[in-house]
């Protein structure tokens, strides 16, 4: 399955060219998107995403969906990158060592069960 807009956004993250959509009022959002969800502006432009974010909340999941059974337990985290937040699977860190405030960077990983790409966060 391909998801135009989202796939290219993941491509960009994988190439170290992560971006978000910035409206003319400075609000952030993520593609695919035609209109700013905050103010209704149609003026959306691709703007470089800050290189690092901080974990705002996270959970260690012991009972995952069937696509994630092989990864249990795994950590899903939401990190604040300033104009946008990103939800990702936190990798390269022991679940017991994760804390709110941890500095992370985005990357593209793969779900081995489905072959789908996914957004990954790694400590930076």
């Amino acid at each position, binding site marked *: 399955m391909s*998801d135009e807009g*989202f796939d290219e956004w993941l491509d960009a993250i994988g190439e170290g060219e992560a971006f978000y959509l910035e409206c003319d009022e400075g609000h952030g*959002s*993520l593609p695919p998107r035609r209109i700013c*969800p905050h103010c209704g502006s149609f003026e959306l432009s691709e703007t470089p995403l800050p290189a690092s974010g901080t974990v*705002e*909340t*996270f*959970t*260690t*999941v*012991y*009972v*995952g*969906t*069937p*696509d*994630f*059974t092989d*990864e249990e337990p*795994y950590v*899903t985290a*939401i990190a604040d990158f300033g104009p*946008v*937040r*990103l*939800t*990702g*699977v936190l990798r390269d860190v022991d679940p017991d060592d994760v804390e*709110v405030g941890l500095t992370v960077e985005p990357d593209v990983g793969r*779900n081995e069960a489905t072959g*789908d790409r*996914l*957004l990954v966060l790694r400590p930076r």
Partner: protein
Amino acid sequence: MAGVRVAGVGLTQFGRHPERTGRDLFAEAALAAREESGVPSDDIEELNFGNYMGVLAERQGHMAPLMAEAAGLDCPATRYEDACASAGMAVREAVRTVRSGESDVVLAGGLERMTNLDTADVTEGLATAADELFEIRQGMTFPGAYALMARAYFERYGGSREDLAHIAVKNHDNAFENEYAQFHRKITVEEALDAPMVADPLGLMDACPVTDGASALVLVSDEYAAEHGLDAPVSVTGTGQGGDNLALQDRRDMASTPAAEKAADEAFADADISPGDVDAAEVHDCFTIAEVLAIESLGLYERGEGIGAARRGETTADGDVPVNLSGGLKAKGHPVGATGGSQVVEMTRLLRGDHPNSDAVPDADVGVTHNAGGTVASAVVHVLEVDR
């Protein structure tokens, strides 16, 4: 604007009925509501039906006409879907339809069949209430999403797993005497804390069970009730709905639920009441933390204050404002697409005085119900009042 009365209510036993079809479950609840109301089937002008995952559980889309047929109705039928808020939305649209004068009698309710699926498929089905691209692919489950909100709440306001355990204990206590509840087993704080972790910081005893069940209500105009001499002392005097971004990451704040605040503000203004008038509440405690967010959104508590309410004994059956006297989703059970209707059914019984827990609120005039979809990207609140 026509007033709206609850003429009859019906529920199935909530619990595990893996062998029973959805149509049979809904028919049981609908026929019970019809019988209690005394309204002839020809007078029922519409069916508003809530369901979330029938396509996954029974490979059944287009459920509403099927459910009308099962309930012995020959009328237009429409399915409402807002995840766990599906039946609450079906009730809301019924209220609006009766108020508008478009119909005098509407049957509203919902159904979910879940236990015929294995745990993995239920987990996957529930997860689809989240954002597929930005959440599900990153392993977000339904408990995981509320765990993210719980940690955000703890970070902002403080609170502990023990505070949450007191909510689970309270709701199991309340379900004990409720004949429709899934669990008739009291638990202790220690038991809740010792339960296996599902999505840290939430454990198994913070989570509602997987439930089959159905709910139904016959809603009529004041005029119809008077004309036909119906015994219908409970009215729906307020309704409100709110919405929010689907993905948690896009919310302004992850430690509160503004959609429910909007729904509550609208419903309270509609009924011309304030939070201080509320005598009892049935709220959407799919996870213990959700009850905290709900009572804060309803204005019963300031933000950050709801976490200790059960522990302090303020929301228990003998507290100032009992919350989830039915047992809530936690212990009564959560047949997703039926839950919102069941809350209105239970509040109706509580206010009429024929609920096993009515003696906890003998003088209650005003009850509210709070039903939320997903991580509260959709929310619906109703105000019910009883003739005294």
